């Protein structure tokens, strides 16, 4: 139905696509995979009319087409849901769903509010989305916003729907909602392009899989003919060990101990012990309070009740700086929003928490700052021209390494990593795993928050699970199974 062939596209200094091809049949889910920078997004932006290809042809139903802008692609029935959310927080769900095609009276001059809410309610009902059309989008969770975003595209009966990492911010309920939406679209004959880094989703959803590497087409095949290792080999061009970590947990010395920690409705009495030299995973559904707990440990928020002990000493950080001086560092899940400062150079980003240490009575030498940054860029393998490269121009994986370098350079004894591999490609992921294991081997206590259970099982010594603001249990990683962890995550017992 949709066919892109022999597509080449260059940007100044980079050849993003080099004779790549992709074809989509009606009623299929076609997973589009590749490392970050492989050219997936560029390819799909060409299909969506955002970029024009340098060479190559796009055919829709066998007819060559070219789109000058996204509206033309939409008019042809090609809809895209990008990773970046475009839901407007100051409008309600109905207005967001029907934005740009609001029902109107008097020749389009007057908004028909009654029809607007009727129409929106009808869409939500048909798609079986339990959401109030009058709810302000600003009060929805990120996952719910993503659902609104997807529903907006689905409601326009697309012929082709491109989903760019749709599940990266979804909770489990919303994920199921999305999967059922995808199934409905399929039966209606819509072709779906599904871009994701999550293997389990690919094999659960996709009919066919295409892999791109360095802008070139590597393979297209039925999902049934492929398996995980084969896909990873195709994406990376080499074997990546996925062996689970042989967790002999070194429970010698307690690094951070949390007792009865509470804050508002998010953290409701957490007991947790983190040992020196271990990687502790923290699993849980969205809204279970994992990030909120980490923020308490990192001195960003103050607890309402409970206490913490750091290496046997009472620990109640009054600020991020206090936590940092005590040796606790937190790497945020929101890399672009909170982790790094995108318009600033790599060097200044890495040095930001360490400026006081790099200075003499308040004065900073730029040369010293650059040396310091260069050293840490080398240790973490940040791929950038130098410390003066602006972070915003780097790939997701490299940005994450900058965020990690920034905190590792403060020499933390306890490091809290919140979704350290979100939006990071397979190769960089493996590098980050190696790094985390090395940290633990050196005696650092590492807490990893992740929504990907296989990641936790592969990386951690031990996995604790949070449910509704409490720790509902923990398991050694070698004994953990997805079923066991999920049972803990769905734990609804009202423990005292």
């Amino acid at each position, binding site marked *: 139905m949709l066919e892109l062939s022999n597509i080449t596209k260059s940007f100044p200094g980079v050849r993003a696509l080099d004779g790549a091809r992709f074809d989509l049949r009606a009623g299929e889910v076609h997973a589009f995979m590749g490392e970050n920078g492989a050219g997936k997004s560029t390819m799909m*932006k060409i299909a969506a009319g955002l970029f024009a290809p340098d060479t190559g042809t796009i055919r829709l139903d066998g007819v060559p087409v070219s789109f000058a802008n996204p509206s033309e692609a939409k008019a042809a029935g090609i809809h895209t849901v990008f990773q970046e*959310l475009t839901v407007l927080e100051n409008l309600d769900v109905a207005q967001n769903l029907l934005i740009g095609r609001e029902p109107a009276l008097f020749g389009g001059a007057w908004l028909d509010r009654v029809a607007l809410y009727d129409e929106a309610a009808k869409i939500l009902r048909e798609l079986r989305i339990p959401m109030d059309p009058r709810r302000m989008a600003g009060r929805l969770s990120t996952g719910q916003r993503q659902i609104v975003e997807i529903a907006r595209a689905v409601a326009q009966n697309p012929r082709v729907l491109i989903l760019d990492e749709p599940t990266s911010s979804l909770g489990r309920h919303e994920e199921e909602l999305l999967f059922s939406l995808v199934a409905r679209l399929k039966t209606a004959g819509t072709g779906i392009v599904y871009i994701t880094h999550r293997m389990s989703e690919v094999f659960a959803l996709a009919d066919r899989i295409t892999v791109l590497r360095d802008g070139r087409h590597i393979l297209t095949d039925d999902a049934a003919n492929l398996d995980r290792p084969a896909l990873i080999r195709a994406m990376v061009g080499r074997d990546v060990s996925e062996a689970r970590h042989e967790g002999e947990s070194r429970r010698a010395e307690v690094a951070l101990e949390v007792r009865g920690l509470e804050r508002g409705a998010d953290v409701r009495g957490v007991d947790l012990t983190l040992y020196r030299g271990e990687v502790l995973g923290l699993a849980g559904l969205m809204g279970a309070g994992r990030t909120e707990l980490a923020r308490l440990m990192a001195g960003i928020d103050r607890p309402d009740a409970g206490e913490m002990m750091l290496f046997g000493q009472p620990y109640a950080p009054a600020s991020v700086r206090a936590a940092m001086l005590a040796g606790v560092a937190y790497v945020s899940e929101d890399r672009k929003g909170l982790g790094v*400062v995108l318009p600033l150079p790599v060097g200044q980003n890495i040095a930001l928490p360490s400026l006081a240490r790099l200075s003499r009575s308040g004065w900073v030498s730029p040369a010293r700052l650059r040396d310091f940054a260069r050293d840490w860029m080398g240790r973490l393998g940040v791929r950038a021209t130098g410390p003066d490269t602006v972070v915003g121009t780097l790939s997701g994986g490299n940005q994450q390494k900058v965020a990690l370098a920034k905190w590792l350079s403060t020499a933390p004894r306890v490091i809290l990593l919140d979704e350290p591999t979100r939006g990071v490609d397979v190769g960089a992921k493996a590098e980050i795993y190696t790094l985390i294991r090395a940290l633990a081997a050196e005696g650092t206590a590492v807490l990893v928050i992740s929504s990907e259970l296989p990641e936790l099982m592969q990386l951690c010594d031990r996995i604790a699970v949070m449910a509704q603001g409490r720790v509902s249990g923990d398991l050694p990683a070698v004994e953990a199974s997805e079923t066991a962890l999920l049972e803990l995550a769905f734990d609804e017992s009202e423990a005292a």
Partner: protein
Amino acid sequence: MTALPPTTSPAMARIRRGAALLRDLLPYAGLFLVVAYFAFASEFFLNTRNFERLITDSATLMLVAFGMTMVILLGEIDLSVGAVVALLSVILVQLMAAGLGWPLAVILVLLIGMGIGGLNGVITVIGDIPSFITTLGMMAVATGLAYVFTGSVSVAIMDDQFLDLFYDDRFLGLPVPLWIVGLAFLASVLYLNRTVAGFELFALGANPAAAALSGVPVKRRKITVFVIMGALVAIAACLSAARLGSGAPGSVPALTLDAIAAVIIGGASLFGGRAFVGRTLMGAALIAVLNNGMVLLNVNIDAQYIIKGLIILLAVVLERVAAGGR
């Protein structure tokens, strides 16, 4: 939240690079063009006496523009500077008229200036109020107070020692105001590019949330910048009073506009995270030459406002296009 993923078509990228180049050239090329134009258009422009007057006249603007650079780097703005310069010059003159020696009067004015700046900062930061509202309020208060203190008439300065030092005297052949501007420039450059606080201001302006999570003492840094602004405004008030020989409540009507214009012509982003003292200096020189030249050519005051306004708009548009929408 972005409306659309950033489009990076080659045509757009070319436009953006072009705008960035123009933005970066604007202070230098603009200064060159206006100097060349006025040198050609007015026989009075290109001579040593006019240039000296130009420099001493623009000292007030320069000092305020350096402070404004730091405020705008934070993504904030200070609309009260013009009114506070007037108020402080009135206070200075009254203090001296009351028999206080000039050194003590200057020190008191400096402290009051820092106090007013600190108040702007505290209300903005602790009260979480947009600085353009805070400082708009402060502007009205300062203007009102200036008139109350003087009874709406300007008061002449009788202290010749003060007038000599802050206007007429020379040190190593150069006018004292030029030395003061030079020192303030050097201090601002060093503060922004060589101190912990300065490095943190760039992060703070570009992404306050990320800066806070990195252990930057956000509130303290922001309030400090407003206090520095207040100190520079106080020194500017002393120079302004010495130049006019009096303290007049309505003495510097266009100062706020000119200072913001200088920073923006210097390529700063009004969204914070991007500002340069060096380019602000060029921007302020451009405005100063423009003011001086337009007076020499008898351009009427309304037309002067229109021309300066258009230059500001041009600079803002260039910066936005160069930054690529966001």
